[in-house]
């Protein structure tokens, strides 16, 4: 107010103090646009919010709100089938993350670094697992394992997860490398470092944010995958998402909501960490 008056003081009579008009690109101040954004948010996130809210619902049938309770979390934690599936999911996710991160990082670096015949088509093929429908990939995996007589289980799930997540790591690492100043490597060689020393002292440290972000991405992809996992799992190798789905088919109890909420929180926090690492490294490389 004081500032407004100070500005208005020299020309008090000529015109009233008024808000500056929004500039053409100031979308944040357009009412209708805010409404559209709000509607989108409600449409997208209301189901998730209600899922989380009803995980605290004290009602077995879980249709109307009966009161707050944590007993279904307790129940979910003590459901041995769910627990087992959860641990199996974590095991698969960790294994596939480690392998796909190493593969993906090497691939991302190779695509960035080298020129070779048919590089374009090769890059396209690498990214194929990202774009082809998951169901096709799942079917392909299943029939492939079947043809070679590989028993479905922990191993086949893990292999499939590696297959669909390492291209994501490659993409992230590749885009991280796009901002790399190659004269850093030359400077290292020039200062007396061997190619090996140069890689570990200069190139790898630069790749790390990309590798970490890619690894977290691979982890969340593996953790919540349903389609491919359902096709490549055998008896006794149920994962967490598959288990939740089978529970839903019986009845939607708050226990399912509770288990789902745990999964949401887990993937969300991993994703936030990945984004934070990426944005931080982005700022840093811009500053340097």
């Amino acid at each position: 107010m004081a500032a407004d008056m100070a500005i208005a003081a020299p020309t008090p009579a000529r015109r009233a103090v008024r808000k500056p008009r929004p500039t053409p690109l100031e979308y944040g101040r357009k009412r209708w646009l805010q409404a559209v954004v709000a509607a989108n948010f409600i449409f997208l996130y209301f189901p998730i919010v209600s899922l989380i809210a009803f995980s605290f619902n004290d009602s077995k049938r879980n249709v109307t709100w009966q009161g707050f309770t944590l007993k279904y979390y307790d129940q979910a934690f003590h459901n041995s089938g769910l627990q087992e599936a959860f641990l199996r999911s974590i095991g698969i996710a960790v294994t596939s993350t480690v392998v796909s991160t190493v593969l993906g990082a090497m691939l991302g670096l190779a695509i960035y670094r080298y020129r070779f015949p048919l590089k374009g088509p090769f890059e396209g093929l690498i990214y194929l697992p990202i774009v082809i429908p998951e169901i096709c990939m799942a079917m392909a995996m299943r029939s492939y394992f079947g043809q070679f007589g590989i028993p479905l289980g922990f191993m086949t799930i893990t292999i499939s997860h590696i297959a669909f997540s390492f291209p994501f790591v490659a993409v992230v690492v590749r885009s991280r490398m796009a901002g790399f100043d190659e004269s850093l490597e030359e400077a290292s060689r020039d200062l007396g470092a061997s190619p090996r020393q140069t890689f570990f002292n200069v190139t790898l440290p630069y790749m790390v944010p990309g590798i970490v972000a890619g690894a977290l991405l691979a982890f969340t992809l593996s953790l919540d995958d349903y389609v491919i996992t359902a096709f490549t799992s055998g008896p006794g190798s149920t994962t967490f998402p598959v288990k939740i789905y089978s529970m839903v088919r019986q009845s939607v109890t708050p226990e399912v909501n509770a288990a789902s909420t745990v999964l949401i929180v887990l993937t969300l926090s991993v994703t936030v960490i990945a984004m934070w690492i990426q944005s931080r490294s982005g700022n840093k490389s811009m500053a340097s």
Partner: protein
Amino acid sequence: MKNGKTIISIRNVCKRFGASVTAVDNANFEIEEGEFFALLGPSGCGKTTLLRMLAGFENPSDGEIVIDGQVMEGVDPDKRPVNMVFQSYAVFPHMSVQRNVEYGLRVTGVPTDETKRRAKEALELVKMERFAERMPSQLSGGQRQRVALARALVKRPKVLLLDEPLSALDAKLREAMQLELVRLQQSVGITFVIVTHDQDEALSMANRIAVMESGRVRQIAPPAELYEFPNCRFVADFIGKMNLFEGKVAGVSGNQIVVESKGLGRIAVPYSGSAQGDVGIAVRPEKIRLDRAQPGTDRVGLRGRVVELAYYGDESNVFLENETGVTVGVNVANDARKTEAAFSIGDELWISWNPADTLVLTE
């Protein structure tokens, strides 16, 4: 500083990329120990490629490079007695200033206490000792360049290679760094080879300059010689400003040459060597005088009409149309404190210069 000993020999060096691109075409010269040597030319002339061949990042397609008596063929960059300051400085972003400077010593197994001592000396040399713990992202462009310099000098190279080291700095800082680089080179006594496209930079810093054009070395000479006695039209035009008329040789008598050109008539110029046929007749803008009265007959004179004026503070450039068909540019020093221009557009003036200041260019 210079002791006449050759530190770098570049012998018939060519660099071709693919079948059609010749980046460096038969470069053949030597650089003496202790020299501040500049490779100067427009972008794409091959100067950076030549520097990168000295550093070992490119291999010559032909010819050989000898540094400090050692043939460089097959010697990797990490084994060469040279170090480089990159155009982007290439300061390692994830290491502190201290770690950056120590890097070249640590990777080659220099003992820790010696590493610390030499890094400290190098940082003092470039006046960066107060910033040792900073990260590169906390430094300005000029400071980062000092780090790059210290990091290279700490290795005590025989030759320091500098690739456009000042191009990323703003004008004022660039000028200050030019002087500082010269001072630094004199204090460490290391041979500096600098690549630049900025003729002022080369003229003000280097002992000798090699001017390159599309892969070829056109002239190698000390700055003043390059400026006053360019050997071809390209060098004459690239270094400083030049008024260039086309003419013919009318005769040679003793150590004088007589050239003839439309609008200029016959001019007798001191000249040694031979020339015939078409030649370029050139004169620097600051060698020309403008008068309202006709100058003496001992000067080359012609009438001109002012068509353009440009004011630069310390001097003004006056452009005159005349009967040679070439618009003549003249630098007039603003040596008195006043705001009125000495000349205005449309003025009819006499353009004149001393015949001895005329250059005859055969190439």
